[in-house]
């Protein structure tokens, strides 16, 4: 039961990162675009699905609370300020989808809130993951670091890294969904973003070596972990090849594979800890009665259904945006 919910949590977190990742990435790219037609196309490429994508963040939040209440209470209270800023960012970008079309004169405001909100939300998410990898000051199941205990150069670096990663996802989504100018722009950005991400990964690795992070020792203990970076590298090569061929469909799945590989690496190197390295999955788990109640309804029936909904909405809005945009 505990394993099942740990798996659900992992799947919904990964889905959130992948799905909201690309629409946050599109939001960040929005900030460097100046043509109204391009902006319109970019918005259209994510507008029908962003809301469903963001749902996965709430799913992650409530599964964490229901199945692992200890981790929920420790992490959310520890990351008080970063989460506040992330939420503010998500709100400001979320309302921009609706508000942008309602005005001509004030459109600059919602353009700014869309791009700025996306950037802040992505940065804060990366920052929290970085702080988590580095290790939070926790004693007896309670965070003791104070208001800024999560702040470190490494966490900031990870914030930048995730922005790069999300933007890369976003460009690949645009390549898949758009034509013309937006697609060309996305293709121009992809090599720089990929190199930036690579540089970030090298920096993280170097940092981990220098600081002798606890994660490192686990890598040496578990050599099979290297399978993930290798899968990621293969995906990177395929990505490069598909960009050269201007194959619109391939880059996005490849970046997805890279993200999944990175996620798998992190998850398995933490195992069996949920908050590394102070709270394990078993310690954090809710009582059996809670997990079982969630399992026999939400877990067994609704969760697969939710995956189906997500697939349906991605299917209904498949294809290039120009072909779909004519009716609205």
């Amino acid at each position, binding site marked *: 039961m505990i394993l099942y919910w740990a798996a659900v949590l992992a799947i919904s977190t990964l889905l959130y990162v992948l799905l909201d990742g690309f629409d946050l990435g599109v939001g960040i790219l929005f900030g460097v675009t100046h043509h109204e037609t391009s902006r319109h196309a970019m918005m259209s490429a994510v507008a029908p699905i962003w809301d469903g994508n963001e749902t996965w963040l709430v799913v992650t939040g409530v599964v964490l*609370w*229901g199945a692992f209440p200890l981790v929920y209470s420790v992490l959310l209270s520890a990351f008080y300020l970063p989460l506040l800023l992330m939420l503010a960012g998500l709100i400001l970008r979320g309302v921009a*989808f609706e508000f942008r079309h309602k005005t001509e004169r004030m459109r600059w405001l919602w353009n700014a809130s869309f791009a700025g909100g996306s950037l802040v939300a992505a940065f804060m998410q990366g920052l929290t993951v970085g702080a988590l990898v580095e290790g939070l000051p926790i004693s007896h199941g309670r965070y003791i670091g104070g208001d800024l205990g999560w702040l470190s150069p490494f966490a900031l670096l990870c914030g930048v890294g995730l922005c790069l990663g999300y933007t890369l996802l976003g460009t690949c989504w645009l390549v898949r969904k758009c034509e013309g100018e937006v697609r060309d722009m996305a293709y121009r950005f992809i090599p720089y973003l990929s190199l930036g991400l690579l540089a970030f990964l090298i920096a993280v690795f170097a940092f981990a070596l220098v600081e002798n992070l606890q994660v490192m020792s686990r890598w040496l203990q578990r050599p099979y972990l290297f399978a993930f970076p290798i899968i990621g590298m293969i995906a990177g090569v395929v990505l490069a090849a598909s960009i050269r061929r201007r194959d619109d469909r391939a880059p996005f799945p490849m970046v997805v594979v890279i993200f999944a590989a990175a996620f798998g690496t992190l998850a398995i190197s933490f195992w069996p800890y949920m908050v590394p390295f102070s709270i394990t999955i078993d310690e954090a788990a809710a009582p059996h009665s809670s997990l079982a109640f969630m399992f026999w309804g939400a877990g067994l029936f609704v969760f697969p259904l939710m995956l189906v909904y997500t697939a349906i909405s991605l299917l209904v809005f498949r294809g290039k945006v120009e072909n779909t945009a004519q009716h609205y």
Partner: protein
Amino acid sequence: MDITALLLSRLQFAFTVSFHIIFPSFTIGLAAWLTVIEALHLVTGRPAYRLVFEFWLKIFGIAFGLGVVSGIVMAFQFGTNWSELSRMSGPVQGPLLSYETFTAFALEASFFGILLFGRQRVAPWFYLFSTAMVALGTTLSAFWIMVNNSWMQVPVGYVVEHGVFVPNDWAKIIFSPVVWVRFPHMLLASYLTGAFCVAATGAWYLLRREFQAEAQIMLRMGFYLAAVLVPVQIFFGHLTGDYIHDDQPAKFAAIEARWYDEQPANEVLIAIPDSRAETNHYALSVPVLGSVIASMSINSKEVGLTDFPRQNRPPVLIPFFAFRIMVGCGLVMLLLAWVGSYLSVKGHIERNRLLLWCTFLSFPLPFIAILTGWFTAEVGRQPWTVYGVLRTANAMTPFLTTRAATISLAVFSAVYIFIFAFGIFYIYQLLREGPVGRLVVPPSDAIPNRPMSVVKHPVTPTSRGLVAGE
């Protein structure tokens, strides 16, 4: 533990949750109504229904968006500001909110996209189905939220182990009688919110002598629905009062501003309660009525606040006045709905400008009633977060500093006021513009008494602006 941080956290929760509830309570009712309209359109083929649908869908879109983004904050706030509550009651509340998200949020979010962007991409029956799914989603969402909140009001079906609430009887939690009076009470409130907003908009257009056909649909449907639902709502409100009387006697006494035991009890209609002096100033009260309302008897003994130690008493002013404002709004709505329905049946409502003005100006009433109803429920529960077992002061994140709490309250206030101001302004613009220019002129052979003839020439939207995303 920081007293200022506690106060700020409570303010922040009250502010964010009050802001949030405005939108779901509107969209729950509106979603159900949109389903009915879409079904009517499918059956009758009358273009006016389609116009009304498209028009309200745009407004639904904005309100729904505001509800979603402000709802995400709620999912996090339990952990950020109330870490002790979330650690202790996570095993009970976490699964309930998980069900809320899993069943409701997923349905809403997925099918809402189809509503906004999928009209041309799916079959008409599937479009109607999607509308119904969005409505079902909003309703389920309300249900789980009410189960969760009712558990905090009257905790049942749990044992305490190692300082954690461990659920041992989920049936008791979900089928608690408290849930089954409070959930209908909330659902009806949402339907009434939808009904009054729609009717008020219809009245506005009639006052402006515009969009007659659409305005008539809005006004009549709103009135008829409200005329039936307001009495039912008052009945469920009474049942809600019964559970408070039985399970939360201190809250009941606070709502009634009853300081000492009375037999038979007076009903204080209006007064200025004074917690320090434990008395009411300028009280206007009716003898015996207090016993009748509380226990349906003419000589029952009703408890007063002084039966409870001071540290276990809720504040009195807010529940007392909030409850009276809620009831007042309900009575005004009842009057409007009945008079409006009567005149609608008689068929000359559009000539009664006084009633149209009153209806137009009535749209804030359901919102005020919902907010004050929640103030009564939540402030009346104090000083407990989980009634009788976990104090609000002990539920807070223990290391939360005043500095952090000030920053977050300031950020949330600024962001919410900012988006609220624009959201309301854009909704106002849409309403003012009205259901215009979205459909092509019906083909000439679609004569009014042969509405199905439209089906042969499907109404098509003009190229721009079918929905929020143009």
